[in-house]
């Protein structure tokens, strides 16, 4: 392959795959993660474990501690023997939730349907009222205990106006609540915790330490600040200097498609984009 051919090489991937890769890039090997059920958050952790941080420890809410899953994973990962393979402990939900309450979980890793500027998020219903929802969803699952008790929470979602909203239809799980100092503590949560990053295919956000408001801090190479802000229902803070997010690699996509979500049951359902493999710029 000549240099010019390499320049022209492209990758096609879904926004879900991109998000999984982005999160995999910020996983730290010496930390402990509490990952919500199965699905994309777990896939992101597993991608990191498979390629970047093989020793990283994590727990899942049904009570498997630091498994070393047997790839390829089955289509239904949740609770499957391949998912729990070679754990250091099989225990129960109350035990791993307690490990989180005790402060052992550095990071929580979650997905959200809808999120507001303070990182409060929704997994309960969209539209209508609680009693007469336009569309009802599955509920918070373990997200509330994870988002309340892990030191830092990483939330993945899609960058869409209806997902980044001024006010979520239902606060299933807490971010910084109303953003006032001590709001989480007054509600009974451990101090020093809260959302840390919101990761989408196109952009990453953190939260301002004083105002607790969401702040744009990094962009995927294939998008711009303006495009990102256009896709949000509220205006976030914007960091002085925006970082550029790493480009997903072919190796990562292959691992997702062949081993972590074989058949692309979850990850293949997103919106497809094609990027330049070297630069990450939008291709075509």
């Amino acid at each position, binding site marked *: 392959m000549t240099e010019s051919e390499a320049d022209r090489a492209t990758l096609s991937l879904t926004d879900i795959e991109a998000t999984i890769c982005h999160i995999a890039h910020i996983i730290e090997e010496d930390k402990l993660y509490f990952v919500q059920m199965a699905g994309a958050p777990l896939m992101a952790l597993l991608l990191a474990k498979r390629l970047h941080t093989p020793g990283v420890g994590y727990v899942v809410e049904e009570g498997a501690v630091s498994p070393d899953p047997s790839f390829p994973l089955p289509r239904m990962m949740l609770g*499957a023997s391949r998912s729990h393979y070679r754990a250091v402990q099989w225990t129960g939900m109350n035990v791993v939730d307690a490990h989180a309450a005790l402060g052992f979980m550095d990071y929580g890793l979650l997905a959200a349907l809808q999120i507001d500027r303070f990182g409060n998020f929704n997994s309960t219903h969209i539209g209508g009222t609680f009693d007469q*929802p336009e569309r009802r969803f599955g509920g918070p699952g373990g997200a509330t205990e994870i988002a309340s008790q892990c030191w830092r929470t990483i939330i993945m979602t899609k960058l869409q106006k209806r997902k980044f909203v001024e006010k979520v239809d239902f*606060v299933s799980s807490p971010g910084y609540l109303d953003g006032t100092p001590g709001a989480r503590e007054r509600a009974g949560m451990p101090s020093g915790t809260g959302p840390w990053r919101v990761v989408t295919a196109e952009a990453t956000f953190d939260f301002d330490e004083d105002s607790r408001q969401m702040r744009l801090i990094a962009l995927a190479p294939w998008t711009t600040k303006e495009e990102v802000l256009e896709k949000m229902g509220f205006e976030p803070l914007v960091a002085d200097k925006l970082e550029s997010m790493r480009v997903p690699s072919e190796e990562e996509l292959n691992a997702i498609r062949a081993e972590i979500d074989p058949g692309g049951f979850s990850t293949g359902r997103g919106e497809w984009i094609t990027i330049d493999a070297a630069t990450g710029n939008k291709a075509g």
Partner: protein
Amino acid sequence: MTQTLQVTAAGKGDFLPPDPDGFREYVRQNKDRRPVNKVVSEKEAVSRFVSDGDYLAYDQNIAVRGPTSLYREIIRQHKKDLWVAAKFTWTDVSLLIAGGCVSKVDVGWMESGALLNKAVKDGSVKLIEWTNGALAYRLLAGSLGVPYLPMRYMGGTDTFEQSGARLTEDPYTGMPLCVVPALNPDVALIHVHQADVHGNARVFGAGVAPAEMAMASKKVIISTEEIIDNEEIRKQPQRTTIPYYLVDAVVEAPFGSYPGSTPGLYGADIEHWLTFAAAQAQGKTDEYLDHWVHSLASHQELLDERLGEQKLAQLREGETVTEGYYD
């Protein structure tokens, strides 16, 4: 010494009022402390121990080690008005809604397809909000015989508002703290790998909360992949998850989690799930239930007439990883 504590907020969600002494009295009158043979058919277990209006809990879910043969028997017997704990579940609630069995759901997580959406909108099913962990923790409270437990989450959310949690002050530090009421289900369904005829039961693998659930529930139905000798139980007491005196009925149910997996033994039947998903999407769950429940007299008939030995062998082979479960 008198000190005053405030309860500063309370959710408006329904819950069974905690009643530790009432539970104790139930145990005293109804639970057999003798190690007697409790093996019954699924039909008898459900007709004797599941009543219309009961609060029903189950451990795990239709994907993994769920007591699905008992779900089907509940539907077959047209049980009604059940209040169900959807803790870490999947299509379990939708299946029971399809069967006309459910009137309330405590939500942790569940699949929320057309059936659930319709039932919520037409008011036939009422939802109360909790979380997976909160429901497991409420079972822990129930298992300890106390009316409530304090915990560090749920406050500040709309989930709290739609739950029965309360925000209180800790009697030692005064710090704000959520409390949740003990959950003592009327009946628990727990599928296990092995049990003896008295109900001493073994669950292998990460278990969610089978021990807490068995302790917290008034009536406990165990379905088991296999019945083993009491002698075997006594040779490895460490492996017992649930002791006999908590258990009311033992139902022998090989492949009792079908279409889900029982880890270490057989894999899940993905195609079956797609069948249910399609039936739900097309409004044809009645046909699904006719085929898989009502036209069959028992779980054994389902195995014999709907699956067959070849399919069962396939499911067994599908469980390629078995290490750690039966060792």
